[in-house]
């Protein structure tokens, strides 16, 4: 296939807001977006070239430089790491004689890492070109290595590499209620738009994506915002490491989700919905498109839904950027731009997608909304706690016997979840992912609820054998990789934190590093522009408060240690001078000259 940029642009009706989708099409043909292609796209779309270049370089799944014909990306969540991903990656790099990120000389393969791919219940996982492969073992890595060596196209690889398993271990309201397609829409029409919003409000439904905002209030604000056009956006970015519950909902309950989006469209007066799906879930694209098509055929989407209103849903695929889960960055991404969170106010409910009133809701929120529309507010109110009605779907992973999906009424204790999942000797639980809360063994009585321990769904368990500092180091690396770079505190703070944690974990950290880690984390928390930066310091601050001895054990007596390896810093000069005498090294003796 040869690349014709203007044909691709024409296929997207020359619509600059579709730039991210256009770049996916270019990547699919060429594996990268070369500088002349950037120029051609910019011209065809009427955009400044620099803006297109900016978008290409923002998303980690796009690249302006050639990568391998086989682009291997190991998922780098802590659960992958615990399941041995670093060793597997090293093994694969060695067998191709490659450095991380390097492209082999024949252009065959490049091997790197990517943030959590949402397969934590079946890791370690990787992405190869656009396919996800779970449950990596040395044997599977061996098979993959041979296939790459043989230059076998990924779509001809054996089927047994790809299946994504579904591990639903506990079902409650959402996962056990069947709904015939159209039932929620009919109920909403019967009740009327305003009354539907009221019903949602009375159900006490709060956003499941993290912030816990009242869904009814959000819908009402959008419905009453001035202007003829409105949008419903479903946030299926699910980028928080350790979260994979939307994956399950999208795979097994897509009809219910689309039902919820359609109800939302009816209720607020929107005729268009957009599902923003993370690029790490390519295996969901075909099934979701098929479900949408089936619903169109059934008259549940399109110009005349149930002869009452117009509503259709479009699928947008992200491109590897956690920050695009933040609702205003997501909207920017939908408009074909870099995913930079907007200044607020104004909020998306009045100035969202294309500056029009927009509802952004999480997948689980919209599924719950469909059920409330059908069965009424009491359906949700009957379970959970007064402040957190309904249920929460948790993605349980890490040191448990049965990782997978667990749905509980709000108010369930952390210990209960651990018991059900078969956890023993639990040292810590990271609830809500790196941006959430790190709980120590003394806090397991606490409850999953907005008023106690809120969770967007992640529940990662660490037993007594785990090094909690290595866990925190993984999280700081994640934030540094995912910071959008817009604001000073997060752009610089996440990188400095990752560097300092790396020193601490490797035993070359000093007391100054620990002091600075707290300082940097607090500065990010107080001054960052969006939720990524304000929460990026959480793992460090939680660990300092709850696992302080782990830090102290790792530190040496000096308040300050060199921030770099002194002896290694002489290596290039040693090489150039062919010296290896004592003076060409830093020995331990020299450092003893220094008093604490």
């Amino acid at each position, binding site marked *: 296939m040869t690349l014709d940029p203007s044909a691709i642009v024409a296929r997207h009706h020359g619509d600059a807001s579709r730039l991210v989708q256009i770049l996916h099409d270019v990547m699919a043909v060429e594996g990268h977006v070369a500088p*002349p292609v950037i120029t051609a796209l910019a011209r065809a779309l009427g955009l400044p070239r620099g*803006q297109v270049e900016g978008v290409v370089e923002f998303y980690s799944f796009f690249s302006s430089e050639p990568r391998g014909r086989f682009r291997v990306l190991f998922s780098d969540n802590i659960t992958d790491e615990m399941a041995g991903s670093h060793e597997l990656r090293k093994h694969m790099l060695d067998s191709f004689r490659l450095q991380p990120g390097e492209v082999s000389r024949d252009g065959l393969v490049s091997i790197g890492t990517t943030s959590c791919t949402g397969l934590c219940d079946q890791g370690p996982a990787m992405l190869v070109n656009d396919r996800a492969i779970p449950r990596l073992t040395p044997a599977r890595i061996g098979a993959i290595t041979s296939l790459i060596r043989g230059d076998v196209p990924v779509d001809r690889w054996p089927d047994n590499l790809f299946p994504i398993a579904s591990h639903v271990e506990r079902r409650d309201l959402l996962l056990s209620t069947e709904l015939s397609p159209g039932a929620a829409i009919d109920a909403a029409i019967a009740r009327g738009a305003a009354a539907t919003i009221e019903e949602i409000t009375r159900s006490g439904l709060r956003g499941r994506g993290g912030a816990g905002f009242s869904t009814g209030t959000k819908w009402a604000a959008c419905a009453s915002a001035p202007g003829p056009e409105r949008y419903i956006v479903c946030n299926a970015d699910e980028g928080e490491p350790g979260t994979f519950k939307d994956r399950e909902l999208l795979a097994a309950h897509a009809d219910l989700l689309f039902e919820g989006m359609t109800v939302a469209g009816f209720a607020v007066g929107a005729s268009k919905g957009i599902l923003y799906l993370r690029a790490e879930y390519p295996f969901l694209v075909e099934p979701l498109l098929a479900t949408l098509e089936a619903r169109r055929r059934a008259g549940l989407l399109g110009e005349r839904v149930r002869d009452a209103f117009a509503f259709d849903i479009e699928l947008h695929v992200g491109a590897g950027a956690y920050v695009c889960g933040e609702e205003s960055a997501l909207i920017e991404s939908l408009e074909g731009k870099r995913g930079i969170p907007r200044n607020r106010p104004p909020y998306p409910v009045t100035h969202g997608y294309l500056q029009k009133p927009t509802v952004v809701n999480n997948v689980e929120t919209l599924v719950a909304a469909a059920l409330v529309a059908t069965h009424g507010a009491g359906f949700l109110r009957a379970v959970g706690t007064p402040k957190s009605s309904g249920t929460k779907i948790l993605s349980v992973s890490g040191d448990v016997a049965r990782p997978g999906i667990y749905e509980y009424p709000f108010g369930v204790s952390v210990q209960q979840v651990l018991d059900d999942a078969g956890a023993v000797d639990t040292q810590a639980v990271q609830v809500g992912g790196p941006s959430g809360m790190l709980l120590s063994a003394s806090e397991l009585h606490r409850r999953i609820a907005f008023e106690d321990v809120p969770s967007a769904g992640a529940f990662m368990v660490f037993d007594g054998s785990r090094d909690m500092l290595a866990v925190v180091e993984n999280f700081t690396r994640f934030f540094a990789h995912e910071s959008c770079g817009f604001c*000073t505190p997060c752009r610089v703070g996440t990188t400095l934190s990752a560097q300092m944690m790396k020193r601490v974990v490797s035993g070359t950290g000093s007391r100054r590093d620990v002091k600075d880690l707290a300082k940097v984390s607090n500065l990010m928390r107080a001054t960052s522009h969006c939720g990524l930066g304000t929460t990026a310091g959480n793992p460090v601050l939680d660990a300092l408060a709850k696992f302080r001895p782990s830090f102290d054990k790792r530190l040496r007596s000096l308040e300050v240690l060199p921030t770099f390896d002194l002896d290694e810093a002489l290596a290039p000069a040693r090489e150039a001078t062919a010296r290896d005498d004592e003076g060409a090294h830093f020995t331990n003796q020299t450092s003893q000259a220094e008093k604490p």
Partner: protein
Amino acid sequence: MSTEKPRPTFQMDGHDVPFDEGQSILAAALAAGRYVPYLCYHPEFQPHGSCKVCTVKINGRTHASCTTPAHEGDVVESNVDELNDMRKGLVQFLFTEGNHFCPSCEASGNCTLQAVGYDLGMTSAHYSPLFPDRPLDASHPEVLLDFNRCILCELCVRASALVDKKSVFSLAGRGIQKHLVVNAESGKLADTELSVDDKAMSVCPVGVILRKRRGFQVPIGERKYDEHPIREVAVQKQKGE
């Protein structure tokens, strides 16, 4: 402009600050002669809100003052140790991130970043410098770009797009890799439409976009912040308008 109705006010560090409907805390404070340190704000452009040096506490919570509209009765803290420490931390982040060798910088003495550093009593960047590798662009006959000092404030991006209508500058990359790019396939300034009388030439708060052969013309002692600290210069400029 005089109106019958008294303007609404908020409190900043115990003083009443009048404001117009929709005005930001920062703009109102500067107009009233109360300095709040800032870097990415410019009165002629929509506020950007990226440097966060203008952070204040409004009714007890931290916000960037340049992007937050004032409300009647707001209680704002600004010139207090806690906030000045945060600001100093942010300025230290910027010095840590880039390569700022003031002694050899043409902007020295006229540089906002440096002047804010002085104002906050910053004597070192504190952290281990990142020493990024950012080659210069000397391709343009009249303009030199020294990316080492870019603080990613997007003022040149905004000026070139909105005033000059050329979009010569954009930002690319993510996180700490984020960087300024010019609008040319070659990546070279010479291949863009930039001309020396563009607005984009005059907005950079630091020493990135430089006229060739014009450096170090103002003698030390007479540069923008030599005689008066930025705390005074910034509010004089506002008052003069």
